[in-house]
């Protein structure tokens, strides 16, 4: 008898263990059903984002303002640290899909072809939203195959940050073209023997090749957007310029800024005179107030006067799996296509909104730190819309640029290898119809 009781107990343990695994699934099913509401109760929307801390508070400010403005829709911000993976899980294995997703726009070209987002063209037409009110490049980045998938919340681009004190001491003015940039960088660089004390200009980020190439008058991909287009004289011009700065003028040392962040940032501590960075660094640098007196100018133009900067930013999209797409659109429209709300968002989060009427506000127009970014955004271009673009840069181009910088490859070899591997990566990661 005892033996049997023991066997039963063990079996019971196993069953309960398995039940524990299964119960999660049923929970989420019932929750999904609960999402369908009756007519008089407000519709609840789940808004997913991966901003925590300060960013979460900024989102909640917007969500609260929207919830107070009407009584038909209730939005709730859901923090998802690993948002993309979570989103993929709900899209495939059931689960409750979010109604809105905070979206890194450059990912659109990878995800939109897989039909996971709902196009908003119809909504735009019904509510007569004027596309010209938004940054065209930002809308382009949210489009695929002639359909628009969301609205931009923020736009950004890199401009030239300079340390006023260091430039004054060296007797130089902020550069406007490559020649002036080279001279200013040379004059502000300070070496102590083999130790670099102040770097004139940051060459830490090889990913900015795109920006320099535009300034040299080039484009990363050809017109078909399927092949790289930098293995030519424009690309060589960029590498010549880098070689001049890094190896001849020695205004920078490889690895100089590695691991430095926030309070130890080389620009904050006065170890770096000039660098390309974006508006996301403004709040960090403003914190250091008097210790760091800095200015911003539009990126210097290339040898033939070409301007160049890369536009990026975030937007909102509505998943195809959402049960309340119309309500989600209402919230998106309220936030991204309304002057007052876009401005509230901009001031809360210290971002440039994608909605142009909001930028007319003196908050942006009269601030010497915002103005250069607005000017830069006028000519900034988004990254090429190819699902393999970022892989092409990360695995095809940048490694060869690093080898070039360390004199392991000649400039011709570096570009030829980048082209060969880059084209292959673009082909391997292209959209499969």
């Amino acid at each position, binding site marked *: 008898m005892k033996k049997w009781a023991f066997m039963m107990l063990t079996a019971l343990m*196993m069953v309960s263990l398995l039940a524990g695994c299964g119960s999660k699934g049923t929970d989420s099913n019932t929750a999904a059903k609960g999402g369908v509401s009756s007519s008089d109760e407000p519709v609840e929307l789940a808004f997913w984002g991966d901003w925590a801390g300060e960013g979460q508070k900024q989102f909640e400010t917007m969500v609260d303002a929207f919830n107070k403005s009407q009584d038909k829709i209730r939005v709730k911000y859901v923090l998802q640290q690993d948002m993309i993976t979570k989103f993929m899980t709900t899209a495939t294995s059931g689960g409750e899909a979010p109604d809105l997703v905070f979206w890194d726009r450059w990912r659109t070209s990878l995800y939109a072809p897989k039909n996971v987002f709902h196009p908003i063209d119809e909504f735009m037409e019904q509510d007569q939203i004027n596309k010209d009110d938004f940054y065209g490049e930002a809308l382009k980045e949210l489009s695929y195959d002639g359909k628009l998938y969301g609205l931009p919340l923020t736009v950004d681009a890199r401009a030239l940050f300079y340390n006023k004190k260091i430039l004054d001491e060296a007797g130089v003015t902020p550069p406007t073209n490559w020649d002036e940039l080279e001279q200013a960088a040379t004059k502000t660089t300070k070496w102590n023997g083999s130790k670099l004390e102040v770097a004139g200009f940051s060459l830490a980020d090889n990913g900015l090749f795109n920006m320099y190439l535009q300034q040299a008058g080039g484009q990363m991909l050809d017109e078909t957007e399927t092949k790289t287009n930098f293995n030519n004289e424009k690309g060589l011009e960029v590498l010549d310029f880098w070689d001049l700065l890094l190896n001849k003028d020695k205004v920078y040392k490889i690895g*100089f800024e590695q691991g430095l962040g926030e309070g130890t940032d080389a620009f904050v501590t006065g170890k770096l005179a000039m660098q390309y960075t974006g508006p996301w660094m403004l709040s960090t640098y403003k914190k250091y107030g008097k210790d760091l007196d800095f200015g911003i100018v539009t990126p210097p133009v290339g040898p033939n006067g070409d301007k160049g900067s890369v536009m990026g930013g975030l937007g909102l999209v509505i998943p195809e799996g959402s049960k309340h797409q119309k309500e989600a659109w209402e919230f998106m429209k309220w936030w991204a296509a309304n002057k007052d709300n876009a401005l509230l968002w901009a001031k809360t989060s210290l971002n440039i909104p994608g909605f142009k009427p909001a930028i007319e506000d003196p908050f942006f127009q009269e601030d010497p730190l915002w103005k250069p970014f607005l000017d830069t955004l006028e000519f900034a271009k988004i990254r090429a819309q190819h699902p393999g673009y970022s892989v092409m840069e990360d695995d095809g181009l940048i490694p060869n640029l*690093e080898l070039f910088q360390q004199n392991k490859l000649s400039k011709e070899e570096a570009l030829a290898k980048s082209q060969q591997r880059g084209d292959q990566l673009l082909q391997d990661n292209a959209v499969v119809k």
Partner: protein
Amino acid sequence: MLASIGKLNRHQEKMAYVFITPTLLLFAIFTVIPVVMALYLSFTNYDVLSRMDWVALDNYQRLFKDGLYWTTFKNVIFYSIIFVPLNILLSLGMAMLMNFKRFGIRLFRTMNYLPTLTSAVAAATVWIWLLHPEFGLVNNMLGWFGITGPAWLAQTETAMPSIIMVTLWQSIGSNMVIYIAGLQGVPDYLYESAKLDGASAFARFRYITWPQLRPTTFLISTMAIIGALQLFDQAFVLTQGGPGNVTKTPVYLIYQQGFKQLQMGYASAQAFVLAIAILIFSLINMRINKAEEPVV
């Protein structure tokens, strides 16, 4: 009498199966089934979101032409060839030092074990600091001797050696503990009789300690090989695969292809080839260590 022993054994056998069933079930659900699924996926163009069509050997054909994938393989093999022997050598050396019965030896053991307790990512972040070319402790110390240290993590020559150093620092502690346990399991009478026969300290190590530790060494080297070929965290934090792809690893590529580019089918094929490579290296290791032969 005999019959009752047989009965008892049969009963114990039955109960043994009952007891290992939960573990085996979990193993099947979370390991065997996913592995079989991954094998199936490696023959499809699965992208998580929209498709899962049979593409036969397309992924494997692409893989053999994928120069970057083989570069990452070359990287981890280079890493393993240096890391695994050094790991065994240093952990064993450390274990023999820490095996003396002296006052305060436990404190030293603890201190040597400490690096293992920190998370790989946190430790790597601190090492980025220590290895900074201008402000890092390592180069500052070299500076006292008039040596200008390199940009450890940013230069192609020193990036991989730096990762080897950091990972060694972190893995020696736990292997040292395993070796200490192994050393304490070596019967004293063997040493005693060897001493009586006039064997030197080196001879005692060569003919007693080392052969007696064979199972321990096999365990440590196998785990080290698996870990080395699956290198990811430290390389990801310290260098992000750079400079010039010299520290990019297969696991990094698998992650990128699968989760960033949504090419799960291709990523599964990459993962399978990696698993087979690990199997091959483990078999070689088994041969070298003669793991199947009994310890005398």
